[in-house]
Structure formats: structure tokens, C-alpha cells
């Protein structure tokens, strides 16, 4: 009986340690979204500032980076300069789109006036776009290939290195 207990106990312990190692080896910010590999949920939302409607489908033909963010989110402030700088560097080759997450439009407008922008920021309708994209917090960023298929999702603030690494998944 003692030998059986030792064997079974060892097997359980090894299994738990294995699960722990697998978990520790993953980057929690690189979320495997069920939407990765699927067509991005379609939307056409109003742009902050201009009021014009922007349809995500109009950017088909080039990679698109959709960034969900809010002014009340500290990491979004941290990430904003990276997004703007990369949007300027990449120009027309990649389309950046911001989507407001649970925030007031006037606050967003004030933030953009103060800190600048290089791409459209859109107002979500009752959070439905965020829900369809499986957003659980901000910032969250989705990388779409030129056919509108989601190729990567990143949770948390990105630096240029992370942004370019994920963008590569959408451009290959």
C-alpha cells in the first residue's frame, strides 16, 4: 500500500509541477483569444472630434491595429506615445484605430488635444464592440491582417518592440 501511495503521489506531484512550468513559460499578456484566426467583428463607429463614421472594412487591403483604451487607464497613457510614434513611422502601410472603452467623449477629446494623435479614435456604442472583441480591460490591442483576419491580441501597454513583433504576425 505504501508503495502505491508513493507512486500515485509522485505522479500527481509531477503532473502539478508540469502544469506549473507550462504556465510559467507563457507570457500572460499574449492572450490566445478565440477570435485569433477568425475574421474581425465588423463595425462602423463615429470618430471622436470629426463625428464622421469610420468603417473598419474600409481599411481592408492593409494591416490594421485596433487599440481599445480609455483616459482613466494609466497604462493607456503610458502606451499612447508608442502608438502615435509607430503610426507616424508606418504611415499608410498600417492603419491604426483607437476605440474608446467606457469613457466620456469629451475626456477623450481633451486627451487627444493635449497629447496629440495620428489615427482615428472611435466611440463604441454601449460597449458592444468591446464585448464582441472579448475586451476584458484596457489597453488591449488586436492585429488584423490585410484580409481583416485577427492574427494577434496583446493585453497591456506595448512598447515599440512588442508592437512590431505582433504586427509581424499580421503582415506575414
Amino acid at each position: 500500500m505504501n508503495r502505491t501511495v508513493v507512486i500515485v503521489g509522485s505522479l500527481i506531484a509531477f503532473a502539478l509541477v508540469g502544469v506549473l512550468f507550462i504556465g510559467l513559460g507563457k507570457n500572460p499578456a499574449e492572450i490566445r483569444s478565440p477570435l485569433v484566426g477568425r475574421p474581425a467583428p465588423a463595425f462602423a463607429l463615429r470618430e471622436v472630434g470629426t463625428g464622421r463614421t469610420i468603417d473598419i472594412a474600409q481599411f481592408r487591403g492593409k494591416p490594421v491595429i485596433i487599440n481599445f483604451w480609455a483616459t482613466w487607464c494609466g497604462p493607456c497613457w503610458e502606451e499612447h506615445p508608442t502608438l502615435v510614434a509607430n503610426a507616424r513611422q508606418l504611415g499608410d502601410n498600417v492603419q491604426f484605430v483607437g476605440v474608446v472603452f467606457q469613457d466620456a467623449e469629451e475626456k477623450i477629446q481633451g486627451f487627444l488635444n493635449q497629447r496629440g494623435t495620428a489615427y482615428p479614435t472611435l466611440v463604441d456604442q454601449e460597449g458592444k464592440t468591446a464585448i464582441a472583441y472579448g475586451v476584458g480591460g484596457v489597453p488591449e490591442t488586436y492585429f488584423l491582417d490585410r484580409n481583416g483576419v485577427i492574427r494577434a491580441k496583446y493585453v497591456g501597454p506595448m512598447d515599440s518592440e512588442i508592437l512590431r513583433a505582433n504586427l509581424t504576425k499580421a503582415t506575414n
Partner: protein
Amino acid sequence: MTFLLLLVLPVYGQTLQVPDAQQFVGNPQGTPLAGDQLYRRTGEVSALLRCPVCQGLSVADSPSEMAVNMKRQVRELLARGYTEEQILRYFELSYGQFVLLKPKFEGVNALVWVFPVAALLIGVLIVFTKIRKLSTDNRQPTTDNPVDNPDDEYLRRVRDMVGGGKA
């Protein structure tokens, strides 16, 4: 094709479109609900969904804006005739199985259901085996008991010392 299946919201004279459940799970397969039934079912279905921004709270229980939006969407979908299965599937396609408070019996998640039952059965088996062994030991003939073994040298010496050895 799925991109054409959108919920259309007219705002400021322009056509706005938000992603709709239809592009995920197709047309409603149930009966549109209203009134008390809609209210009750909204609570029931929302209780099956995890609030993504909360710590272990369901969409029904959480006061967060995210949960309120999700609950509103559940109500809208029930009012349009979507079934509970379709609604849960819609949220699962966006958030993964994480959003389901009751994990599905499939893949690695099956362990959540199987492991407790298996652990309980193994425990019962161990206890049963142990009890059976103990009762078997107690019923064993006592010939092996060293107290009654006449050939035991130690016992013989003790009996000699207390004077009972030859009695």
C-alpha cells in the same frame, strides 16, 4: 458575408454599425421574450456568465459598467429570440470558455468535472480497503500471537521468573 450581418444604429444621420451576435451565431432560434419572462431569463442567463473585469462575480451580480453592458446585451438578444445556448456561445466566441461560469465537459476542462469525482472514488476505495484489511486482521487466528507461543524464549524466561512457567 458575415460582415454584412450587422446591427445598424442611425446616429447623427449617419449609419453606425456595431458587431452583432448574428455574425457569430446566426439567426435567433428561439422565441422572442418580453415582460416578466424577459426580466427573469435575463437574470438567469447573466448568472451563467463571468464578468471579465471582476473577481469571480457573474454578470448578473456585478455592478461594473462592463457587466451592465453585457447584461443589457443578454436582454436584447433574449428579446430578439436568441436561445440561452446561442447567447452563451456568442460570449464564448469572444472571450473563450473563461466567460462561462459553468465550464464545458470537453478537453482539459473535463478534468474539472472528472477529477473531484475520481478523487472521491479513490478515497472511498482506500478507506474501504483499509477497513477491510483491519477487520480481516482482527479475525485472524491467534496462533501467531507471541503471547500464546509456547516456544517463545522470552516468554518462557518471563514465566520462569514469575513462577508460572511450570504450573
